[in-house]
């Protein structure tokens, strides 16, 4: 690692102040960022560790919304009865991230801010139509993700919480790359209160996480696995690497969507 200063503020305003320093970098749980720092792919002047800010942690139900603080760990989400009682798909998702040690440190805010194309949480944020709350504003998930590792976050902007509308039913179907346990192609499927069905896909898109309009239309009209058969999922725009071809990923989108429908039927 390059050398850098380290600070662990206990309140958000102090963190935002520190992030105003030239070359400052925010850190959630560090489970992606620390390996990146070790590879010298990042050279911050000061690392602002957000994990000491208690106001960013916690899970609460607010009417028809579930609000998860940005500093809440994957382990806390996976073990929360508030989450499993409201959005079962989020429980499945959080419990399948990495391994127990990663889940004890990694946070939902860190995952969303990093927007790794194979991360799990972005698919849930998109499929559930979440709102990303920051220290400056609220951003709709549909506007938040802007390509590989790119988000709507500005310099010095920190995610404070994520607000998830509570769906009628939801599930996360993960097809993992067996060595890294990131998503090779995974689908978050949500049946919303207005009858619509939303499909978030991660791990597959060359531009990162996306919703699939064709699948959403077909399943909103007929919520059955057979409805997926008639939908064309193009290999165009899917990522291509040594783990899987675009065609394989496109096929997996349909397979995982079918499994999701079956899991909720």
């Amino acid at each position, binding site marked *: *690692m*390059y*050398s*850098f*200063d*380290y600070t*662990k503020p206990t309140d958000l305003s102090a963190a935002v102040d520190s992030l105003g320093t030239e070359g400052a970098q925010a850190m959630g749980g*560090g*489970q992606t960022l*620390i*390996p990146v*720092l*070790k590879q010298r792919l990042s050279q911050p002047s*000061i*690392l602002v*560790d957000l*994990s000491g800010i208690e106001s960013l942690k916690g899970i609460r139900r607010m009417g028809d919304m579930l609000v998860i603080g940005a500093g809440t760990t994957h*382990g806390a989400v996976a073990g929360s009865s508030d989450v499993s009682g409201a959005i079962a798909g989020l429980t499945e998702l959080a419990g399948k991230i*990495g*391994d*127990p*040690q*990663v889940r*004890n*440190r990694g946070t939902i805010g860190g995952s969303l801010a990093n927007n790794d194309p194979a991360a799990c949480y972005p698919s849930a944020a998109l499929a559930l139509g979440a709102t990303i709350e920051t220290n400056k504003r609220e951003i709709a998930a549909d506007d938040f993700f802007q390509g590989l590792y790119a988000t709507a976050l500005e310099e010095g902007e920190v995610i404070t919480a994520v607000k998830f509308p509570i769906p009628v039913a939801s599930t996360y179907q993960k097809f993992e790359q067996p060595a890294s*346990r990131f998503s090779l192609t995974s689908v978050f499927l949500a049946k919303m209160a207005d009858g619509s069905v939303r499909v978030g896909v991660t791990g597959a898109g060359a531009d990162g996480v996306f919703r699939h309009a064709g699948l959403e239309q077909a399943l909103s009209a007929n919520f059955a696995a057979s409805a997926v058969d008639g939908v064309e999922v193009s290999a165009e725009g899917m990522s291509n690497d040594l783990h899987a071809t675009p065609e394989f990923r496109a096929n997996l989108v349909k397979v995982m969507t079918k499994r999701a429908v079956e899991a909720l039927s």
Partner: protein
Amino acid sequence: MSTISITVNGKQKSGDAQGNTLLVDFLRSELKMTGTHVGCDTSQCGACVVHVNGESVKSCSVFASACDGATVTTIEGMANDDGSLGVIQAAFQEQHGLQCGFCTPGMVMSIAEMLKNNPQPTEAEIREGLKGNICRCTGYHNIVKAAQSAAAALAGAAQAAE
């Protein structure tokens, strides 16, 4: 450079750390506690697992400065007070749960947390709970047996205490 104070295995310890000093390097180089191993240094192998405030973490993926004031338990804290092997360590010995032994400190620490949260795990739950720990010798079979044996021994001890 700043001074970090942590409680390690019940004892107060202090040492110097840079902003980028990892917890595992602080434990090994500053506190000279070399039971915690660095296997891959890329957050994958789990040889460096310790507990920070009661939760298992990969100490190669946590900064020492983040643990200032924390309570840390390492493999050195898993032995009995008289220096004999603790229950999980003894189970590894009895079940031949190690060959070269390099991954064992992390395996023991991961199993300790697993059994605390789930005292009677199924084989599938044990394998799932050890996803963050890699062993290149055993093929995992005897490690799973060691976890099962430790779970039974701890359950027996708990029953005897009642």
